[in-house]
């Protein structure tokens, strides 16, 4: 049937179509042949070929120097670097998360001063490269040889110390990474808090919960569902960007390898060693991230395509995840 017929079909019965209107049921019970997507098939073929070539050359190309890779893979200097990288990532990220929550709270505060100082902080720390920030903190004593706490401008010093004795190498590295990262975390936390519908807060308040309990028991757990995925990405990012601490001569994973290959010139094999470790760490982290995301996504029906229905639909057979520790505690008390 062509278009002109469709256009006029409201006003007149189109003749002669009756014969095709009832094909015998046999025809319609016949096998159906799905459409083939030739473009996709060809693209996939080319890709498979390329991957095969890559694998082939990985094995046969002598320049990869696999024996050297193997020799350094568990080298104590590399292991020590890996340890430092992991420690840096864990500690700096923890500080950054706490700072980020505080900054997000300030940014969302009704107090204009708090909110704009937090805004300026975010602007500055997101606006300059981490590398520069690290160099800056490391060289703070060039600007301020002595740090002290006292009454500003006039008063006596209550406590003071040499800048360098306060800002040790690790302090600088952690401070630099954490302050920079906290600016990003603040934005993530803020987004998470704003994502919890105001209705939830109202329902909790209406039940007589005070604002703090409401935040801790109702808003935060739900915000975490939104906060966790980007935080996972930040952790992975931190793992990698923490390698910038090499600028202040803290030998993390990458820098340990650089210290070796700048002397032995086995650049490629050592970069492969480092890459393998980074890939392992990021894969493990991604795995943990997915697990944690699932945990915090509990109780949320993820059927995006039916989301505009008025009432949420019975979502059948959702695996019941573990409860929160807090909630479990309540239940156990209840049983005792």
């Amino acid at each position, binding site marked *: 049937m062509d278009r002109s017929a469709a256009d006029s079909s409201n006003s007149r019965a189109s003749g002669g179509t009756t014969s095709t209107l009832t094909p015998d049921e046999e025809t319609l019970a016949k096998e159906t042949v799905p459409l083939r997507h030739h473009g996709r098939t060809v693209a996939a073929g080319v890709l498979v070929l390329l991957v095969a070539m890559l694998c082939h050359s990985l094995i046969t190309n002598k320049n990869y120097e696999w024996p050297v890779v193997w020799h350094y893979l568990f080298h104590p200097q590399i292991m020590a670097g890996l340890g430092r990288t992991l420690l840096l990532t864990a500690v700096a990220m923890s500080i950054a998360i706490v700072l980020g929550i505080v900054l997000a709270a300030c940014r969302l505060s009704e107090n204009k001063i708090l909110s704009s100082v937090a805004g300026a902080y975010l602007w500055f720390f997101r606006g300059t490269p981490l590398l520069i920030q690290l*160099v800056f903190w*490391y*060289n703070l*004593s*060039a600007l301020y040889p002595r740090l002290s706490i006292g009454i500003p401008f006039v008063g006596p010093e209550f406590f003071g110390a040499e800048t*360098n004795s306060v800002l040790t*190498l690790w302090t600088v590295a952690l401070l630099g990474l954490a302050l920079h990262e906290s600016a990003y975390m603040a934005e993530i936390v803020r987004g998470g808090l704003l994502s919890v519908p105001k209705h939830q807060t109202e329902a909790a308040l209406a039940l007589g919960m005070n604002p703090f309990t409401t935040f801790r028991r109702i808003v935060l757990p739900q915000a975490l569902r939104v906060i966790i995925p980007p935080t996972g990405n930040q952790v992975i990012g931190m793992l990698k960007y923490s390698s910038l601490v*090499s*600028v202040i*001569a803290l030998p993390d994973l990458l820098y340990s390898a*650089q*210290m070796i*290959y*700048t*002397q*032995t*010139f086995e*650049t490629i094999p050592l970069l492969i060693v480092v890459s393998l470790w980074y890939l392992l760490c990021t894969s493990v982290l991604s795995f943990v991230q997915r697990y944690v995301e699932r945990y915090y996504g509990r109780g949320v029906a993820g059927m995006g395509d039916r989301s505009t229905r008025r009432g949420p639909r019975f979502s059948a057979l959702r695996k019941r995840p573990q409860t929160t520790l807090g909630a479990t505690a309540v239940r156990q008390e209840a049983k005792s």
Partner: protein
Amino acid sequence: GESLNEAKTAGSVQSKDDGLAMLLPKAVRDKGTITVAAAVYAPAVMVPPGGGEPTGWDIQITRETAALLGLKVKFTIIPFDGVIPGLQAGRYDAATGEINVTDDRTKIVRFVVNHVSRDAFMVKADSKYAKFQDPLDACGLIVGASLGSSEAALANKLAAGCDTAGKAPLTVKTFADQATVNLALSQGRIAANIASGSQVAYSVKQSKGKFKVAEMGFGPEIKTGFVLPNNANTAEMAKAFEAATNKLIETGGLQRILNEQNLGLGAVKKSEVIPPVEN
């Protein structure tokens, strides 16, 4: 820094020696230009703040040696730790910049020696150290060097020496460039810096009295030179540059350059290729 504005011999004062030029591989001779990598390492290699061609004594030696062979030089300034990997990757035809001859390096590249230097310590002006006579004198200190330099390796050797002697441990910090080393030193994050004597002299001059030289009494004389990657052309190239360097020495050009830019220090009597070319 005002010393940078003292325009050094920017162009070459040598003209082509056809005999020497015939020593070059034909492909290089036909091309007429070589790409040379160098890291900023004052006063051997410096870049004028306004941009333009690099200056420094090792730059000038390279330029004049190449001129004798009838070659033009295109300099590429890169970080020090990228110089030798860059040669390995075939990105450059050669490298220069007070690069020390070490065992690790001679396994993968070939040197045409044109200069000798001594390492020295640099300390703060108010430091109690004036001279390090013995390798164990530095034990207990935090010592800085730049990443990938032979001085970093030397510092590590000193640290190992302190350990075996049961002395207080020597800590080595390697930084990406000399500027960061100097900054760390000026703030007392490191107690001393090991670098080549000429680099130390230059830094001391730049520091406007903040730093001083502490001589290294035990350090050997270290050969430095023009570096060539290992490939099909290496042998011929090395021979040609060795001959050209010798001519530069004979004509007094080498001493003149060092007089102008390195307080006259470090000239060699005769060039050599390390490791030597067979036949």
